[in-house]
């Protein structure tokens, strides 16, 4: 298939969108530090997120017809120069990141004010914007080493951000440290993989590399490169047995950071996985190795069942959500390992839908931290009555996690089950449904605690601040909107899946 590739040397704004996508948050970060005012820092963060969102939506509209935007940094043509390459898949993930960042921004105002000492605010926001930059860079770039660099930018920023939760609970420090160790090992594995690929192909450009790798699938260097990359990325995206860093990091990070990272960081790692598996190594390589059937599939099933089971017994709402995230990553990997276009569509759509669901739920958890002094389930007892709006949003989020019709979660599960059955993989459909039942149990526990435990007689309403409620409800309404209207999500993920398969 030949795809129209557009690039030129002119400096119209539309042509420069890919680089602006990175530059806007990247430049805003030092700006915040220079200005050094807390309120202005928040405004810059919010505006940078909003502008990023507009840019990413623009990019998505540009590539929505199946075209590809190729942007050459500094005018150096690939494979020598670094290329930014935007197609339906990256644009979709970019929109997700920018959207989440914009949604959580109003929430940050009070949440950060409550959890982080004042003097750290400007640095906090700077680090946050760097994290956003890193995540977007990973997604937009077409150069494998660049992926590593951006990945480390986002990771380093997120270690810092997570550790800042120490002002609420000192365990944030050790969880950040553990994440740092594991994350660095993962990143280093990833670099080894890239090095081996470079040895074989002599290039770092993804498309170029993909072309040169063709017919070399039996080379042991290529195969070990693949293994290193899968493990490295697997650590980042918390594939089931490599997930140990995630629950504590999510539980003890500042609420705002948890909400943002839960919705974006693992999703970006999944994006890397998709990119390497399908664009660089090609589906034929995957089929030859049968790695999906023998490695990813069993692990994803384990994640869906074991992580859900662990979630049931969590004492902390955030911890429960964290384990649920691991299980949901399992769904996405399951979609990938079905090895068909429909499976990929399901994975991509769940990536998005789970993102908006989890951001809503983690923001709710953060609201409880502020108003109820913590997110342990014991703190939540009876919160349904004292914080009716926040808790209603929690219910919407929980329903979406379960996959009740009318919510985003239902759509992705429907498509996932459909993909499994279409490809004759009945048992997988049963696993998905079984895991949904486990979700019923842990979500039921949360809802029950909110509405039917002890505090039943409390009637003094003590609602979260309005700015937080706005964020929470935008995310919750998004859960419902994307559950009822799927024109955008399905068509884009369909297109993205097609392009991953064809290229």
């Amino acid at each position, binding site marked *: 298939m030949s795809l129209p590739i557009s690039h030129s040397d002119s400096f119209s704004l539309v042509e420069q969108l890919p680089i602006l996508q990175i530059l806007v948050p990247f430049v805003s970060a030092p700006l915040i530090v220079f200005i050094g005012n807390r309120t202005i820092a928040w405004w810059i963060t919010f505006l940078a997120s909003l502008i990023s969102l507009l840019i990413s939506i623009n990019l998505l509209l540009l590539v929505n017809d199946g075209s590809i935007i190729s942007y050459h940094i500094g005018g150096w043509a690939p494979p020598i120069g670094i290329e930014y390459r935007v197609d339906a898949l990256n644009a979709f993930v970019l929109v997700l990141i920018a959207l989440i960042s914009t949604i959580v921004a109003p929430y940050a105002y*009070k949440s950060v004010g409550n959890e982080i*000492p004042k003097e750290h605010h400007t640095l906090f926001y700077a680090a946050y914007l760097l994290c956003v930059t890193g995540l977007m860079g990973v997604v937009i770039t077409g150069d494998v080493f660049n992926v590593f660099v951006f990945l480390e930018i986002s990771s380093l920023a997120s270690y810092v951000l997570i550790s800042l939760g120490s002002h609420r609970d000192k365990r944030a420090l050790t969880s950040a440290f553990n994440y740092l160790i594991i994350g660095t090992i993962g990143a280093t594995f990833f670099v080894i993989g890239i090095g081996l690929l470079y040895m074989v192909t002599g290039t770092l450009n993804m498309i170029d590399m993909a072309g040169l790798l063709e017919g070399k699938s039996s080379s042991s260097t290529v195969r070990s490169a693949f293994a290193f990359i899968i493990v490295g990325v697997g650590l980042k995206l918390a594939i089931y047995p490599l997930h140990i860093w995630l629950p504590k990091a999510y539980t003890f990070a500042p609420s705002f950071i948890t909400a943002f990272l839960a919705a974006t960081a693992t999703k970006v790692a999944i994006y890397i996985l998709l990119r390497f598996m399908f664009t660089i190594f090609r589906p034929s390589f995957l089929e030859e190795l049968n790695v999906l059937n023998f490695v990813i599939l069993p692990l994803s099933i384990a994640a869906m069942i074991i992580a859900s089971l662990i979630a049931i017994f969590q004492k902390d709402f955030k911890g429960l959500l964290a384990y649920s995230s691991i299980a949901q990553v399992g769904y996405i990997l399951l979609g990938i390992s079905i090895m068909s276009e429909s499976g990929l569509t399901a994975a991509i759509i769940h990536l998005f839908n789970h993102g908006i669901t989890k951001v809503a739920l983690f923001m709710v958890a953060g609201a409880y931290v502020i108003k109820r002094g913590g997110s342990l389930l014991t703190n939540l007892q009876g919160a349904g009555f004292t914080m009716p709006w926040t808790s209603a949003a929690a219910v919407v989020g929980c329903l979406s996690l379960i996959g009740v019709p009318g919510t985003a979660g239902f759509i992705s599960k429907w498509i996932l089950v459909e993909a499994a059955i279409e490809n004759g993989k009945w048992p997988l459909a049963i696993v998905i449904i079984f895991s949904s039942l486990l979700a019923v149990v842990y979500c039921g526990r949360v809802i029950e605690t909110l509405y039917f435990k002890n505090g039943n007689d409390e009637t003094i309403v003590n609602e979260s601040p309005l700015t937080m409620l706005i964020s929470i409800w935008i995310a919750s309404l998004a859960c419902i909107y994307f559950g009822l209207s799927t024109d955008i999500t399905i068509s884009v993920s369909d297109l993205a899946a097609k392009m991953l398969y064809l290229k």
Partner: protein
Amino acid sequence: MINWEFIIGHLNYWFFIVLMMTGLYIVIAKGNLVKKVVGLNIFQTSVFMFYISIGKVIGGTAPIFPVDMKIDNNIVYSNPLPHVLILTAIVVGVATTSLALALIVRIREEYGTIEEDEIFIIEHELDSSNKTPNTYKENGHF
């Protein structure tokens, strides 16, 4: 029959593997957080050295073009790209190390120790105490 050619030919790999495993072992086995970071450094360094070694071309010279740009096709140059990449990776590694050390300082302040098993005991008590962690209270909103 030992294939000496294979062993000698892949010498850089052997060193790389030994160093890498040493680093990983330290990260996993040592309880002292600083030692963990040292292990992590060894681990990363092994990868850097591996990268640089694959850029080496036997008989190659430094990849610098003559001033008059008259390039002699007979001269073999080493590949500079891996070095450049590793320069970036080293920078990332330094940043990681410094951040890790900063975290260790903070952990020492909060826990009074940097031994993993002692931290584990403290955390286990915190986990099972079921106590609500303190919310940061100093002038709540801004």
